[in-house]
């Protein structure tokens, strides 16, 4: 897959816009996933995830083809998310109080539409809970926790994405894991 992506990137660099469509459609879910877990709001997450792809397109010439494209792309996505979180902090509007409930809405919406077995409804509530707890982490722990289980990323790659030394990545994972342990031990 990485080779096909590399081929598409070469074409994009030559100026073939259509080749970029393949890249977007391949990575859209992963990028959206990262941003949604970081931001919490579906609407904002979509906005930032799209912005990440547009940035990747306009800066494609600065991408070094000897490196992994996913790492580069996720870095753009996480940086944009972190920037947005920084800007968001001061303006507490109505939504801020119920931060994370968008996820809940999404899950309960699904549950209502499809009349799922109780077990699955419970699972959805659980997922929604986990999503909320991840969002309650300080952003610096949130980043490592979100990336850790996505796409089989190694700790070294997470360090590369977040521009952190390996030791710092580990420390943050340990702290984040401890924080979540306290929140999730009773679920």
């Amino acid at each position, binding site marked *: 897959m990485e080779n096909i992506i590399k081929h598409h990137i070469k074409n994009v660099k*030559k*100026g*073939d*816009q*259509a080749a*970029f*469509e393949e890249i*977007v*459609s391949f990575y*859209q*879910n*992963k*990028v*959206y*996933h990262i941003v*949604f*877990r970081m931001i919490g709001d*579906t609407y904002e997450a*979509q906005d930032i*995830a*799209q912005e990440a*792809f*547009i940035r990747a*397109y*306009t800066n494609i010439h600065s991408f070094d083809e000897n490196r992994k494209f996913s790492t580069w792309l996720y870095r753009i996505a996480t940086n944009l998310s972190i920037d947005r979180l920084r800007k968001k902090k001061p303006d507490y509007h109505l939504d801020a109080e119920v931060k994370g409930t968008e996820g809940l809405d999404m899950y309960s919406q699904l549950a209502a539409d499809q009349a799922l077995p109780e077990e699955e409804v419970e699972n959805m509530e*659980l*997922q929604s809970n*986990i*999503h909320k707890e*991840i969002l309650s982490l300080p952003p610096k722990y949130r980043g490592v*926790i979100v990336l*850790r*289980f*996505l796409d089989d990323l190694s*700790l070294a790659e997470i360090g590369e994405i977040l521009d952190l030394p390996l030791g710092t990545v*580990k420390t943050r*994972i*340990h702290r984040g*894991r*401890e924080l*979540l*342990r306290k929140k*999730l*031990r009773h*679920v």
Partner: protein
Amino acid sequence: MNCEESLKLMHQYLDGDASEEEAQLLREHLHECPECQQHYQELKQTESLLSGAAYELSAPAGFTASVMAKLPKEKKRVGYMRWFRTHPVITAAAVFFLFMFTSVFSAWNNDASVSVSKQEGLIVENDLVIVPEGVTVEGDLVVENGDLDIRGEVDGDVTILNGDLVEGAGAKANMAAADNITGEYQEIDRMFGWLWFHMKQVFTF
């Protein structure tokens, strides 16, 4: 091993960073220390909950199309190049016709000077080719970009490209001049006639 060390090792173990030896030490400690055992179980539960939550969320429908619509416009040149790549036969045909027509047009434009098939006894004056009186031209006569004045006789076909058969000074009238040609007489001064004539020549040689 004390509990503090054990806690550090738990995280290392969960990161996949612990050696076999360290894992063994950790297991021994967890066996003896219920508090650490409890802590470790909670961490493991957290890990499994997180990995369960890591199933990929789907981007909203129409995400890709929306991104594509927002990209800055690509350079036109590339659009053409892509079209050429996807239509190689049409491209090849177009290139062929382009070359053919440019060469034909340049030949048409460059052929301004008078030329005549080589035969003895002909006189060329500016754009006028004269078959002098009393001279009989043997073989087919071709005059290009010039007029032809037959005062003598032509034993063969006459073809005039881009020119006229003229009534020379003291010579017979046009129709009469044509009478002095034993073969066929042909006057070509239209683009396609000219083209057709040249193509026929190419194929007869």
